[in-house]
């Protein structure tokens, strides 16, 4: 995209017709993923490869399982008079620093697929939470590392907004990877989830209100240690698990939030890459010699603004025309 923008900007003036929701509309050329796939497949004889794992099977008695889960919600909500503000779904998702690092193209038929820049397959874990009343909880971002030096610095673009306005929590994993751990889960509950519930309990003068937290069946969530800790410290938060292998069907974050969020994040990341590419081209560097910024502290700092953009995308006031607390 950077090369097209710099060397052939007239491409973007080419008229195309797109099919959107069954209707054909006029548009200008966009360097869409589908175009790139088509181009490399037909012109370069490359096919799209991804190091991926087989998808999970949906249970055969899916309707029964989901109905069971639904009715458990119904029971808890009716039995404890739970308002929508007191129901939260949280989910973790991975954000890669290099957009598309898990994918590559290779000549069709090739057996060995090396992912260029595989070493750069680094990213962080993002914990997203949304309430049934339409609120987005502050994000928790978990970066790999064993000290605060592994976190974005205060000089990162968007840092002030992220930490002061949106109350994001940046945490290091205390391990060699960015996976969420029981410690980061406890931190999420203590620093984000419980304060959220507590603020509404106080606002509505419901100090003993039972709250619902829907999370998936990840082993840490189900672990005795975590459940015991929740019971000992937050017995008023009742956990509802998303039925196994049903996250794509019965987990609101998975069904409707992460996609928008990840798109916003990816577009922000791509914007950084395009700008960086254009800077190099404008300096006279040949397209074949263009490099991408891979230095971890730089991309890690960039990620803060990506998250701010992602948060605003799913909490878009233009979309949320009228937020009403369901009471």
């Amino acid at each position, binding site marked *: 995209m950077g090369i097209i923008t710099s060397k052939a900007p007239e491409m973007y003036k080419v008229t195309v017709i797109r099919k959107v929701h069954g209707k054909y509309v006029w548009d200008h050329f966009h360097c869409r993923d*589908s175009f790139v796939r088509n181009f490399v497949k037909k012109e370069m004889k490359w096919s799209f490869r991804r190091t991926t794992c087989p998808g999970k099977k949906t249970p055969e008695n899916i309707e029964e399982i989901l109905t069971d889960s639904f*009715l458990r*919600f119904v029971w808890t909500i009716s039995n404890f008079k739970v308002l929508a503000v007191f129901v939260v779904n949280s989910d973790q998702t991975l954000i890669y620093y290099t957009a598309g690092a898990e994918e590559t193209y290779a000549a069709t038929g090739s057996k060995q697929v090396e992912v260029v820049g595989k070493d750069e397959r680094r990213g962080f874990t993002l914990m997203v939470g949304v309430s049934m009343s339409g609120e987005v909880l502050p994000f928790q971002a978990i970066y790999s590392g064993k000290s605060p030096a592994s976190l974005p610095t205060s000089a990162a673009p968007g840092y002030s907004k992220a930490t002061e306005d949106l109350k994001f929590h940046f945490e290091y994993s205390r391990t060699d990877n960015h996976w969420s751990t029981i410690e980061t889960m406890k931190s999420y509950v203590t620093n984000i989830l419980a304060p959220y519930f507590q603020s509404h309990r106080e606002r509505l003068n419901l100090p003993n209100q039972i709250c619902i937290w829907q999370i998936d069946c990840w082993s840490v969530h*189900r672990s005795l240690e975590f459940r015991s800790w929740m019971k000992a410290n937050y017995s008023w938060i009742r956990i509802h698990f998303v039925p196994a292998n049903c996250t794509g069907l019965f987990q609101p974050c998975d069904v409707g*939030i992460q996609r928008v969020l990840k798109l916003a994040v*990816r577009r922000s990341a*791509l914007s950084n890459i395009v700008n960086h590419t254009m800077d190099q081209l404008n300096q006279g560097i040949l397209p074949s010699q263009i490099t991408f910024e891979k230095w971890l502290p730089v991309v890690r700092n960039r990620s803060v603004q990506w998250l701010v953009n992602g948060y605003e995308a799913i909490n878009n006031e233009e979309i949320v025309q009228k937020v009403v607390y369901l009471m």
Partner: protein
Amino acid sequence: MCIYSSLFQAFKLCSTGEDGFNLSYESLTSEKAMKALSEWMKNSKDFTDTLSRVGPIGVEEEEEEVTGDGSEKAIEYDEIDSSKTVEEEIADLMAGGAVNDLEEDEVCVGTNLEQYIGYEFSSQTATNSWMKWDTKGSH
């Protein structure tokens, strides 16, 4: 009460299937849901027995183990088209879920389309006109 939010939509899209229940607050607190709960409790002692326990609620089944190195598995295209705008993605969500109407072959990049710009390709008739043009091109 009129609510237009992708967040509400996310809960609404979590459907149980044919029963028509979903995770929206309206559905969870509906009379129909209460009746269904009552019926379910009558018919399933296990369900009823597990409701009032203090521990977490849900199907505590192990996630299926994912195996294989995945290096040469079937290709699955990335579902996120980074050239799509966030607004387009939200519009798809509000329309009932992720929709990918853009098929590769449905993108027609051409230089000879100007002849169709004008009244014939007004926003109202562009679809028909283009399809007519497309049919001609295929013969």
